[in-house]
């Protein structure tokens, strides 16, 4: 019986391989030029990618990741053949990528759009002089307040109040990010991540453990939690809050007294990119005045393009959440990479979540 089965197995194999080749048809690497983008999902409109592709006679291919670290892992393990032309690292990840020499230095001559950028954005701490990255979306991490669950809040809301006031017990959620939460705790104690010592970090986490009963959880995705009325005070990203607030009137974005984290998602070109010229064109198209304006309108995140701000309708350009005032801006800090503290933070974070 087995004797008869073998030829049939061979036939099946042939069928299988021929099936495989018909799906391969859509994967022709040798064809028109490609622009390979590795990105978060919410930023690029299908329509935009398609029109860019048509205008520049290039095939735009987008691949998605859901965390900076996933992106880094994939980037490090793939060679030039499978690489990308444009990636979207967050600010601290840009620093890491620069140190790992995974990025191409930017040729400013090919980025005329930078002349439309605000002065302040041209020299961030994580990438001085924008040697390797171009800021795209600029957001903050603050508090989403659900008026349905917590009717009255004091005028001067602070993280300290959120973490210590017993009437908020069990109604607070924090983001699932060790550094964000640490920064928050440090700011309550008047310190910052940039200058923190090991003792400061330990103290901050001890504080968090002490008040953990306030915290309902560390949800990976804040939007469903906000939409489901599951948190009175939800630590969240500004864009997420604004999106939810569009439909849900009881959600408001607040910046606590101690300040908030400011962060950017940036465009960068990997060192092994094969089509950097097209990448530059893309950056210019995305972030010129018109492009930046529609970007902000769609994603509710501001860009660094000052002309775009002028073009935006009043209700957007005067929105304090999207464009915080200079006083508020002073209280905002980027998250810095503190390699020396990484192991300590890992342990303390595990400890915090375990108990």
């Amino acid at each position, binding site marked *: 019986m*087995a*004797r008869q*089965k*073998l030829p049939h197995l061979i036939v099946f194999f042939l069928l299988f391989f021929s099936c495989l080749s018909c799906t391969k048809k859509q994967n022709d690497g040798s064809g028109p030029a490609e622009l390979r983008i590795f990105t978060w999902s919410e930023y690029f409109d299908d329509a935009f990618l398609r029109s860019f592709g048509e205008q520049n006679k290039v095939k735009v291919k987008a691949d998605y990741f859901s*965390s900076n*670290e*996933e992106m*880094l*892992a994939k980037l*490090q393990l793939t060679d030039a053949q499978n690489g990308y032309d444009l990636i979207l690292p967050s600010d601290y990840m840009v620093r890491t990528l620069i140190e*790992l020499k995974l990025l191409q230095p930017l040729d400013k001559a090919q980025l005329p759009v930078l002349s439309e950028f605000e002065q302040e954005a041209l020299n961030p701490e994580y990438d001085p002089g924008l040697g390797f990255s171009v800021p795209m979306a600029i957001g903050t991490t603050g508090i989403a307040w659900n008026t349905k669950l917590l009717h009255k809040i004091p005028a001067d809301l602070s993280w300290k109040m959120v973490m210590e006031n017993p009437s908020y017990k069990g109604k607070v*959620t924090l983001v*699932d990010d*060790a550094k964000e939460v640490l920064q928050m705790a440090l700011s309550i104690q008047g310190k910052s991540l940039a200058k923190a010592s090991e003792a400061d970090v330990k103290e901050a986490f001890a504080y968090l453990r002490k008040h953990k009963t306030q915290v*309902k*959880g*560390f*949800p*990976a*995705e804040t939007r*469903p*939690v906000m939409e*489901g009325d*599951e948190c009175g005070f939800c630590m969240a990203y500004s864009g997420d809050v604004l999106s939810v607030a569009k439909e849900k009137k009881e959600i408001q974005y607040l910046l606590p007294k101690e300040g908030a984290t400011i962060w950017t998602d940036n465009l960068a070109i990997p060192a092994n990119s094969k089509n950097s010229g097209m990448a530059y064109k893309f950056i210019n198209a995305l972030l010129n005045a018109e492009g930046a304006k529609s970007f902000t309108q769609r994603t509710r995140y501001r860009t660094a393009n000052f002309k775009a701000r002028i073009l935006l309708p009043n209700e957007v350009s005067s929105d304090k959440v999207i464009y915080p005032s200079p006083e508020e801006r002073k209280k905002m800090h980027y998250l810095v990479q503190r390699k020396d503290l*990484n*192991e300590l*933070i*890992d*342990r303390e*974070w*595990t*400890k915090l*979540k*375990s108990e």
Partner: protein
Amino acid sequence: MDRRRLLIIPYLLWLLGLVAAPFALIFSASFGQKDEAGLIQFGFSTDAYRTLLDPLYLQVFARTLAMASIHTLLTLTAAYPAAFFLSRLPRKSAALYMTFLLVPFWTNYLIRLLAFMDVLRLAPFGFEWTFTFHGILAALLYNYLPFAVLPLYSALEKVPSSLIEAAQDLGASRRRILISVLWPLTKNAVFATALLVFIPALGEFLIPELVGGGRSYMLGTFLQQQFLTFRNWPLGAAAIVFLLLLSLLALLLGGKALAEEGA
């Protein structure tokens, strides 16, 4: 008969090329050290294992084992009666009912989970389910139930109704039948199913994360942290090796059961 043995070749290729290889990589990675780039410097160092022996991390293992055990017990208890019910039906009806059991699983896992979470958020039976331990158990049950019913059904089907009827005629209570008739005949399958349900649950991270809201720190969460966020791959690899050893232990204990089941 000899020719038939050749058919084992695909399995061998799979085993060597697609199972042994990643395992070997993980194993050697666990003896490496985290380098500057967050990649691995292969070598021989027990750093990772020594870090693992920290009570903090052992606690994570213990908690995960506890969760997986409770979940296994729950799932088996829920699946057994269902499988028994199916086994008393004629083949065709059982197959139909079985498919109804499985069709929900022809949608995407994530959509299923998010839909389930939407239901959980409605606080059925007046309890809070999200951000809780019992919520995680409910979601795990939701996910693993059909996979537990299948093998149990397979085994229970072999138990002839005549046997049960005979026991009933002799005056045995339902409980007696369960203990003296069903259990001895199906205990091997139960062990095998338990393993099938227990072991993957150990590595679960999505459900504790999404449903538990990050409240319960499990092994799966730990691995995500080590491989991605904190980029300590040797530590993650060491944890996996440790997990493997635990699972192999469980496998050996149930291994005898599997040998008899497969015959």
